[in-house]
Structure formats: C-alpha cells, structure tokens
C-alpha cells in the first residue's frame, strides 16, 4: 500500500453525480416545473439515481480497459 491510483477519467465520471445530486442543490430545489406530476426536486433526484448508475458503469469500463492494457504490456 498505497495501491494503484484510479484513472482521472474514472474519478471525474464518479464526480458527476456528486455535482448533480449534492453541490448544485440550490439550482434544482424547487417545485416547478413538475415532471409527470412530481415536484422538480424529487424528479431530478430520481432521474440522477439512474444516471449515476450509468456514470459508474462508464467508470468501470474505463478502469477495465486500463487494466487490460497494462496486462498486455
């Protein structure tokens, strides 16, 4: 230890949900416009739950390709 560091790209991908769901709260914490009858803040978070899963999947692909490259060398 310390172990191999994750790639910058993977870290950035994982950071996107933090910006969207946490730091930017002041921008989306409101009722209107309602999305499918659901207040905007609640709808925004539900939407980002799915998107954060996608971000992690992308980070996984990045890391997996990287370790494959290293294995080939």
């Amino acid at each position: 230890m310390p172990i191999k560091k994750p790639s910058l790209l993977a870290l950035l991908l994982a950071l996107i949900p933090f910006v969207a769901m946490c730091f930017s709260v002041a921008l989306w914490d409101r009722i209107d416009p309602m999305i499918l009858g659901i207040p905007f803040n609640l709808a925004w978070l539900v939407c980002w739950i799915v998107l954060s899963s996608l971000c992690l999947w992308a980070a996984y692909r990045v890391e997996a390709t990287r370790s494959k490259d290293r294995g080939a060398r």
Partner: protein
Amino acid sequence: MSPSAVSLTTIFAIVGIGVVIGFLAGVRRKMNLEQWTVGARGFGMLLMFLLMAGEIYTTFSFLGASGWAYSRGGPTLYILAYLSLGAGVSFFILPHIWELGRKYKLQTQSDFFGLRYGNKYLAAFVCVVGVIFLIPYLQLQITGLGIIVNVASFNGIGRTSAMAISVALLAAFVLASGVRAVAWISVLKDVLMLVAAVSIGIGIPYLHYGGIGPMFAALAQTRPAHLTMPGATTSLGHSWYITTVLLSALGAYMWPHAFGAAFTAKSGDTLRRNAIVMPLYTITLAFILFAGFTAVMVVPGLPDGDLALLTIVRQSFPAWFLGVIGGAGALTAMVPASILILTAATLFAKNLCRPIFAPTMTDDQVAKLARGMVLVLSAISLYLAIHSSTTLVSLLLLGYAGVTQFFPGVVLGLYWKHVTMPGVFAGMIAGVAIVAYLILTHQDPFMGWSAGFVALCINFLITAILSLLTPAMPPLDQTHN
C-alpha cells in the same frame, strides 16, 4: 377474526417464513469463526448484492424516510441522494479493501486498521467506536419493529412489549444462523419490500387523490413550503443538505458491517459491479416518500412522524394488507439488525477482548464470547429503544456522524503514502470527540452544517498535518513479509 388478529397473524407468518429460510441456510454447514462472520469469502454477485442491499435498505428507509417526508418535508430528499453517491465512493475503496482482506486474512474493519497502521490500540479504538455507533442503528431497527407490531395490533400490543418480543426473536435467529442465512432472507425481504413500496407509493395517493400527480398538486397548493428545503424545519436548509449528503455518502461503507461485508465477496470485481447497480435499488425509496407526503394531508397531527406510513396504510387498506406491509417492514428491520448484532459482537470479541485483554484465546473461545455478546448487545439496544424518543432518521444520522470519522484513516491509508498512525489516531479521536460534544450539547446542525461533517473536516485536517510532521511508516509489504 378481528382486524388486529388478521394483520398480526400475517406479519408473524411472513417473519416465520423468513426465519425458516434462515435456519435452513445455516443448518447444513458446520460453522467456524470465518464461516459465521464472512461466509468463507465465497459470495458471488447475486448474494453480495442481496447482502449489501439487505444492509442498506432498512427500517430507516421504510418508516424513517416516510416519517421525515411527513414531519420535515423537503430535507428528507437527502436520503434519495446519498446512497447513490455512497455507491460511487465504494467503487474506489471496497475492491482494494477486499484485496487486502484476501491477502492478509482480514475479517473486520478493525483488522484493517491494525494491519495498515500496525498499532493494536488504534485497532481497538476503531472497534470500540464502531460498536458504540452501531448501537443507535440497532436501536433504530428495534424501534421500527416496535412501531410495526404496535400499529398492526391497532395499539393492542404496547410498543415496549412489541420491542421485547422482536429482540428475543432476533437474538435467537442470529445465534442459530450467521451471515449466510441473513443474505438468503434478504431475497424474501427484497421482493416483499419492492411489492410493498410500489403498491403503497402508487395506491395511497390514488385512493385519496386519484393519483400521484393530483396528490402533489394538492400539497403544492396547500403547503408549498413543505416540498422544498428547509421544509417544516428552520435549520435544515441547503448547506445542511450538502454537508449531510457528503457525510452520509462518505460514511455509507464506513459502517463496520458494510465494510466487513466487502470481505464476503468472491472478488474485487464483484464489488465494483455491485456498486454500479446499487443506486438503482434506491429508486423504490421515492415511492415510499410519495406515501409519506400523502400522509401530510390525510393523517395530520400525529405525535410521531415515524408512525405516518403505517397509520395511513391502516387507514387506506384492509387488515390483511396492513399485515403484508408490516411483515415486509419487520423483515426490513430484522435482516439489518441481525447483521448489525453479528458485526458488533464479533468486533467486540475478536478485536477488543482478545488482543487487549486475553491474547491466549482460541478462535472457538472468541466465537463463544461473540455469541454471548449477541445477547448483551440486544439487551442494551432494547433498553435504549424503550427509553428514547428520537426520530429514526436522527438516530441514523447520529451513527453516520460517528462512523464517518473512519473515512480519513481508510481512504488515506489506501491512497496516501505519507499517512501515519499518530496522524490517523489523533484525527479520529478529535473527530469522535467533536461529534460527541456537538450532539450531546444539541448543536447539530452546527452553523447550518451537519455536526458530523464539521468533525470530519477537522479530523481530515489533523490527520494530514500530523502525518506530515511524524516520521513516515515503512511500506506494508516490508513489514509483513
């Protein structure tokens, strides 16, 4: 049969099925210490997902989240955010923890600190802090069980006796089965929870307002402030939201049981893929919030917000369905509670008693002591649950404030080669002391920030500064070869 008999019978039938599944999963294996605690490191993707989901989706999310939607409003949204973000954090931490676990035969969080920083007192301190802050989480589950039985019996069974019955059942269950049983009951629990969450989340707004949209429209009309932050509170605004989400996301896998669960995985890759799907699991929470928001208008004026979900279910559906929801809720409390007790008991015996007080103990004796501790911990949590009136969410936030203080030691231990034992030890002591002080003097939130997050920042700072001032530690590979 009276309505209370119908709902109670249904609950006990569901819990009974769960217990049978648990016993069957445990009975065919002869369990040594490693089997009982980490399932011999053989959990694949599916079992792993179930185990982790089983830990994360607890009475807190079921009764607590809807309770806060009812009593606090907007601030409850933090619950939708932090689990997804916590999964992102775990993606970069747990696979490495798992690798070290396999290499050095680690079983607990305290083992990790002992290995990384080579100091048995630090390891013991981690263990003590872990056990102390697991107790509010355990207390939360027991309170939840009490509420379920109490509401389902139409107040026929008092909350205290309801909690006592639940705790006895829980302790018997944990002693008989171990971690594998818990993962398998999660299957039943998850299916039931999914059905329960979706049906009440859609059904309750539909029955009272003709749909989710009309329900929110009515709430936005009558109490618009309730739907945004700070909602019905004065202190839980945006800075509270950001600091609380960060605290909880960083701490989500610092719980001794969640951290320890990483050791049960088959590979580091299992844990990474698990992190990808974990956020999706929290979508069902939105449905539970729908029910909580409906309750604001349908059953106003409840003395305790945590009663909101079950009260509105009782008012909207027949007794047997209340039983199904109650049964799902009961399993949702029992599964995590079993894991919590199991973890705390093992930590106490293996990482506190043996290294500090009785180095000659054999593995079998440790296992016996751990089993004894199951009873002690159950009794303590029951006592606290009977004598407390805190909301379920506040209990969990208290636990998070404590366990997140492990984060600097874990993340710097993995990624920063200059980190030293004195730095981590001092930072952690300061963090825990600040949490204790701010919470006991009722200063949470502190200047609009979550008290645990304030403590975490100071913890990080002290750890970093002292680490740079103290001599560097030899790399692990040299000390352990």
